[in-house]
């Protein structure tokens, strides 16, 4: 019908203004969705930087900063800030579910000892006192994607702390 109308006006073109208006409206919605995604990404909802992407938990003096939202196959880090009075050997245990989700690419500083146990991987570090909070960084990479998973970490003999995280594809 639209074609006939167009022909009647002398221009042979397959115009359908009504449908075009619908498409234009749909485009505006798509733009709004795109803008929303960019804003969410800036806030960190898609991982890699931004306030939502990282979270921290405290475990008797130590602070664990972990990626709350991370991406599959993408480098990220989990850092543990030990209490200022820590010295001697400090152990950090990453639970079995954590080890299943992430491959640990490297640890800074190198742990003096590594152990696998039924609870997960245990890393021992030699810490010398002397002011400031020693920082231990685990460079990790998610090896599968997971929507909402809770894993635990444990510093020394303190109770394990829970970390809930999302790994986007």
């Amino acid at each position, binding site marked *: 019908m639209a074609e006939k109308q167009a022909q009647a006006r002398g221009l042979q073109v397959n115009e359908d203004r009504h449908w075009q208006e619908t498409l234009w409206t749909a485009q505006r919605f798509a733009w709004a969705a*795109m803008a929303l995604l*960019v804003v969410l*990404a800036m806030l960190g909802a*898609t991982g*890699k930087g931004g306030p939502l992407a990282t979270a921290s938990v405290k475990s008797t003096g130590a602070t664990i900063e972990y990626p709350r939202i991370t*991406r599959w*196959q*993408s480098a990220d880090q989990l850092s543990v800030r030990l209490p200022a009075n820590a010295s001697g050997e400090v152990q950090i245990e990453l639970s079995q579910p954590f080890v299943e989700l992430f491959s640990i690419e490297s640890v800074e500083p190198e742990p003096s000892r590594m152990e696998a146990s039924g609870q997960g991987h245990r890393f021992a570090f030699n810490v010398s006192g002397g002011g400031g909070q020693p920082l231990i960084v685990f460079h990790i990479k998610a090896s599968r994607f997971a929507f909402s998973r809770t894993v635990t970490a444990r510093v020394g003999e303190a109770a394990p702390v829970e970390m809930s995280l999302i790994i*986007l*594809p």
Partner: protein
Amino acid sequence: METVIRGAAIYFFLMLILRASGRRTLAEITPFDFVLLLIIAETTQQALLGEDYSISNAIVLIVTLIGLDIFLSHVMRWWPAAGRLLEGVPTVLVRDGKIDRRALERSRIGEEEILVAARQRQGLENLSQIKHAVLETDSGISIIPKER
């Protein structure tokens, strides 16, 4: 956040460099221009993606780049001065049959290129048949023939 910043940085840098290099550069693709284009694509890909091969990264990046493009096209409509800056203004190369040598020289266009456009678009045979020739902002040359 990082992905959006990377995307925006590369977008604006490329925009700046392509504007600075002048309109002709990527307009008529010679084999060498084509190779150059591929090298630019390959180089920016590294800067854009880094080591992150996740789907989320790709989605956020594409949406950022296309979103910026849509946004800037709106900015240029609302604020024409931005359009003059980002897209440039058309250049008259031939006015009333008279060639503007300075315009040709400054925009790095040869007489031959005007003739090519005249032949391809209007089927004209020589310069005397051209009334006006304009280098448009999209890097094409438009030809208005003299009345026969």
